[in-house]
């Protein structure tokens, strides 16, 4: 005679073991289906938008998120289609990606590498994101790019300008549409020579982190190549808010030009302080003193107010461009949100479309297939003229804008004017250029 005893504890144990046993294959299949991480199942595909939602770059992050939401709308066939109408590739049909409706999750990078990695990891592991994109800092981009490489996920970088993102820290699964420090230097130098001559003594103030170093190096080498002399290059702490102690010695050094290798709040404060000190009203050996901001952002320029007037810099894109792609994007974005998009919004929107298009052309979400589709891809109609996604380093090569703070703005958005559209040939460099030395793309990783 058999005796069966059901106890509460026994039931719980059995239930837990059975539950775990059933859940395990489901989890593994979510990660490993079709041989790559987070292969989409069902009728939807999830993208992960990792942008700064808190912290000092939160406004820029909000603009990136607006652009991604617009891109998702257009990919799913809603709205006016935006740049899908002007994009040279016609693979996108407005029916999602490979027929799957596009959904998205968001993460908050906080503009901190560890927080950005944690939010990207969570979107990959918990939400099943098949691609991660966004960000407003090179430190974040490099950190998240490395994580995506390990996880077998495609990373489409947002706003990141350091040479290292597609230089020594490049990865096979990572792609950058935004321009870089080298390109800024190469585009700016001839314009500066025209405007200010070839005999200038430059003083650099440089944010003490990776992006600052590569920008200083790029601007120094480009301007020195045309005859300028670098009097001093001083590192300033990233947390610095009052730059008076750094700006006061500039005139004593005999310099007649100040280069502010600063971004965000640093740029707003250092430029404001420099103008307060009256540097722009000074003359050094008969030359008017000049200030240069290598990387301009309209959102950040707004914080510096009238201080940006007449100051040269470079930018990846500007809403006043008159090509069909830019006009279409500005109309879509402006109609939806009531103001023109920033360069951060533009690069993020374009990256989302480029990823979707690559998947369509590859016929697969598998990262290695997407990498193949993007490498060497030439396209147009996205706002920067004919563009190449170079296979050697996954950097986009396109025209670069040299801009100047506008003297008489007509609105709060009308802060910069385009001085020159520098042709792509002038900002192109060899993959083994010393400023990009070290590191290797490695092989693409499908994960799973």
């Amino acid at each position, binding site marked *: 005679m058999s005796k069966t005893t059901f106890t509460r504890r026994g039931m719980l144990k059995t239930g837990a073991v059975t539950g775990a046993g059933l859940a395990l294959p489901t989890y593994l299949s979510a990660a490993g289906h079709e041989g790559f991480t987070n292969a989409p199942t069902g009728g939807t595909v999830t993208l992960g938008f990792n942008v700064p939602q808190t912290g000092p770059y939160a406004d820029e992050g909000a603009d990136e998120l607006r652009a991604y939401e617009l891109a998702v709308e257009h990919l799913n066939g809603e709205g006016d289609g935006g740049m899908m109408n002007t994009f040279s590739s016609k693979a996108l049909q407005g029916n999602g990606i490979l027929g799957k409706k596009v959904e998205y999750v968001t993460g908050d990078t906080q503009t901190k590498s560890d927080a950005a990695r944690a939010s990207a990891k969570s979107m990959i592991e918990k939400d099943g994101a098949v691609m991660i994109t966004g960000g407003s800092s090179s430190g974040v981009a490099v950190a998240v790019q490395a994580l995506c490489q390990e996880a077998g996920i495609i990373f489409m970088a947002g706003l990141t300008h350091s040479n290292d993102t597609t230089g020594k820290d490049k990865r096979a699964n990572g792609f950058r549409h935004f321009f870089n420090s080298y390109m800024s230097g190469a585009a700016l130098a001839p314009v500066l020579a025209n405007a200010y001559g070839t005999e200038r003594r430059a003083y650099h103030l440089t944010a003490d982190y990776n992006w600052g170093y590569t920008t200083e190096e790029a601007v120094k080498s480009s301007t020195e190549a045309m005859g300028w002399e670098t009097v001093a290059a001083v590192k300033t702490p990233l947390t610095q*808010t009052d730059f*008076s102690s*750094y700006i006061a010695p500039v005139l004593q050094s005999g310099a007649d030009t100040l280069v502010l290798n600063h971004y965000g709040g640093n740029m707003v404060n250092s430029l404001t*302080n420099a103008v*307060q000190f*009256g540097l722009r009203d000074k003359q050094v050996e008969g030359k008017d003193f000049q200030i240069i901001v290598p990387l301009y952002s309209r959102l950040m320029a*707004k914080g510096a107010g009238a201080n940006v007037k007449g100051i040269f810099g470079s930018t990846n894109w500007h809403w006043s461009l008159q090509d069909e792609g830019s006009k279409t994007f500005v109309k879509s974005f402006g109609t939806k949100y009531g103001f023109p998009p920033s360069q951060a919004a533009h690069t993020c929107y374009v990256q989302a479309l480029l990823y979707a298009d690559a998947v369509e052309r590859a016929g697969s979400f598998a990262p290695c297939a997407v990498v193949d589709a993007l490498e060497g891809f030439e396209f147009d109609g996205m706002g920067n003229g004919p563009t190449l996604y170079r296979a050697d380093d996954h950097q986009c090569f396109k025209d670069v804008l040299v801009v100047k703070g506008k003297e008489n703005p007509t609105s709060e958005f009308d802060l910069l004017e385009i001085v020159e559209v520098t042709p792509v040939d002038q900002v192109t460099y060899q993959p083994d250029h010393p400023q990009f030395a070290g590191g290797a793309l490695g092989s693409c990783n499908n994960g799973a």
Partner: protein
Amino acid sequence: MDAIILQILNGLDKGSAYALIALGLTLIFGTLGVVNFAHGALFMIGAFCAVTLSRILTISHTIVDETQKDFLGNPLKVDVPYVYDWFGEATGNVIIDWAVPLSILFAIPVMILIGVIMERGLIKHFYKRPHADQILVTFGLAIVLQEVIKYFYGANPIPTPAPDAFRGSFDFGLMLGFDANQIIYPYWRLVYFAFAAVIIGAVFAFLQFTTFGMVVRAGMADRETVGLLGINIDKRFTIMFGLAAAVAGLAGVMYTPINSPNYHMGMDFLVLSFVVVVVGGMGSLPGAVLAGFLLGILESFASMGAVIDLLPGINQIIIYLVAIIILLTRPRGLMGRKGVMED
């Protein structure tokens, strides 16, 4: 020599901000015994009083300018401030241009009110709690205030310029016999230093020469005895909290043309101001002012190229280094009193 004079001048305005914030912190600590980590947030709110008044003065109605186009190609909508309609464009421009100095009048009642609400609504419940609890609750409050400001004003810095009359810089070098451009100093920073000196002088005079101030000083020395004499010292201390909030707020208002205000500017000053208070001596008002200027000037010197070349990174640690040295040699700080925070 010119470089040294220049860095002393630079240190004075930075020191002025430290001194004003530290003065308020010390007033609160000396009267109520509370370590107020929300004091940096009061500095930040003061700055945003200037931003708010600027926005109030530029409240506009819209007219459509058919001759110009907006970014979507529609006729441009131009904002015309109401002050133009009321006072004419020229006078209206002057009023808007002087928004920051005018904000002083706006900030004083607002900051006193915020200070009193903060003290009565939250901080009074923590008087008998340990200092650690006070620090936690005031730090939490600072974060809440910061996020509230970010919600309404965004994360980007907001330009709030000085009046046109104070833009540009003054060539001190020429006055002292140096070559041109060797020692230049912005007019507004001179104004800030003078303003800080007036506020500090006024606070000391108020405490020293008024009956109210005398009672407060007596209460700081022996709260119990003053209470036994039938004086409502709690009420006076609440007013002092409001006054300290106003001092921090005014420091913030006048700082806006130096650096465009943003929601986390208070935190940037808070930690340094606490170091200033500790170096000056907990509870010592003259100590807070002295240490504020001293550390401001030292910080400026440490940012000189020659000093950084000699000791890389010294600009980031100088204040803490000096604090360690002073606390090792004078544990109560420069002008600290016996018995304060020593029980």
